[in-house]
């Protein structure tokens, strides 16, 4: 029983993909996606301050060679920018619900 458990664990670990550190190409791809979403939000006049901060954090981390952190920040920026686009889109009509009539 103990042997089969150990074998199962060994098999599981051997099949699990090894965590790979992010490289510059990963960062550039993540940053480009975030920047595109951010530009869309800005075009809708609905940029969020936190998106701008996350993009800046991504650039700073990349400049320091920390691509893991840079990718994480870029992905966060992309998610925030996309949320702001959703907000601006839904508010095109939703604002009327708040109006005093």
């Amino acid at each position, binding site marked *: 029983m103990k042997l089969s458990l150990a074998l199962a664990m060994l098999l599981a670990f051997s099949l699990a993909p090894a965590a790979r550190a992010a490289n510059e190409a990963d960062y550039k791809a993540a940053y480009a996606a975030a920047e595109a979403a951010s530009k869309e939000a800005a075009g809708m006049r609905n940029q969020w301050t936190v998106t*701008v901060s996350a993009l800046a954090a991504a650039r700073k981390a990349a400049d320091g060679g920390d691509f893991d952190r840079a990718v994480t920040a870029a992905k966060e920026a992309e998610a925030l920018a996309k949320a702001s686009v959703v907000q601006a889109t839904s508010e095109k009509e939703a604002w009327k619900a708040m109006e005093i009539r």
Partner: protein
Amino acid sequence: MKARFALLLGSLSAALVAFALTSPRVIAADKVDPVADAKAFQNFFFQKFPTVKHDDFVNGPYSMNEDMKRQWQEKEEFPPYEFALDAGKEMFSTPFKNGKTYADCFPNGGIGIRQNYPYFDTGEGKVVTLELALNRCREANGEAPYSYVKDEMASLTAYMAFTSRGKPMDIKIPDDPRALAAFENGKRYFYTRRGQMNFSCASCHVQSPGERIRAEILAPALGILNAMPIYRSEWSGMGTTSRRFVTCNSQTRAVPLEPQADEYRDVEYFLSYVANGLPISGPGARP
């Protein structure tokens, strides 16, 4: 069979009546009607706060909280905007390099006219705020424009507001589809949620006036611009209407627009129009 037919006919009639009753409301809701909007806006606050005197709404949070009001009334004996007021008076009367003054740019020499701003310029097709008119006056006379958010601009508008104290806000919307569009755009901006906090201007100043947000008491939207510009203790200085809009946006974690952007001009037009009849109380002092 007859019963089923009667039931069907009854349901159809009920549906038609319901449609007839609701459809005019839908049409009315989509029509731009500033007079009806202003009436509804004022009634909302008058009914929500029946003990507040109508003219008192222009005093913002002080109209909502007796303790704060007493403190403010004492502070008004030596108001924190006094230095800006004095500076504004001096600036207003100091000639430009070409010998002209601000008085040459405004009706009635710029005295007692705050209640007419912003106005819709039918030539330009846009809303013109007092701050914008002041900078245009400077530029027309060969002077560099001031920052829209503080210092000199706040001093100048403080003086102009002071000379207009007590005069009822009197914003006109000309019979021009572009003016109606500007009003509607301002209204949309006021009610639209933005920023990571998902707040609109109305989230605080319509839904929650009198409530605390952290240590502050929220001001009612009605008459909120009548007190501008203001000295804010939080800013340790004076701020203009532009500064107020920029700060509100930042607080909701939305990137502010550039001062005097069309949206800001339009929301100032909307908020000023719905406060028509309420007195100018600027310059004001706020926590």
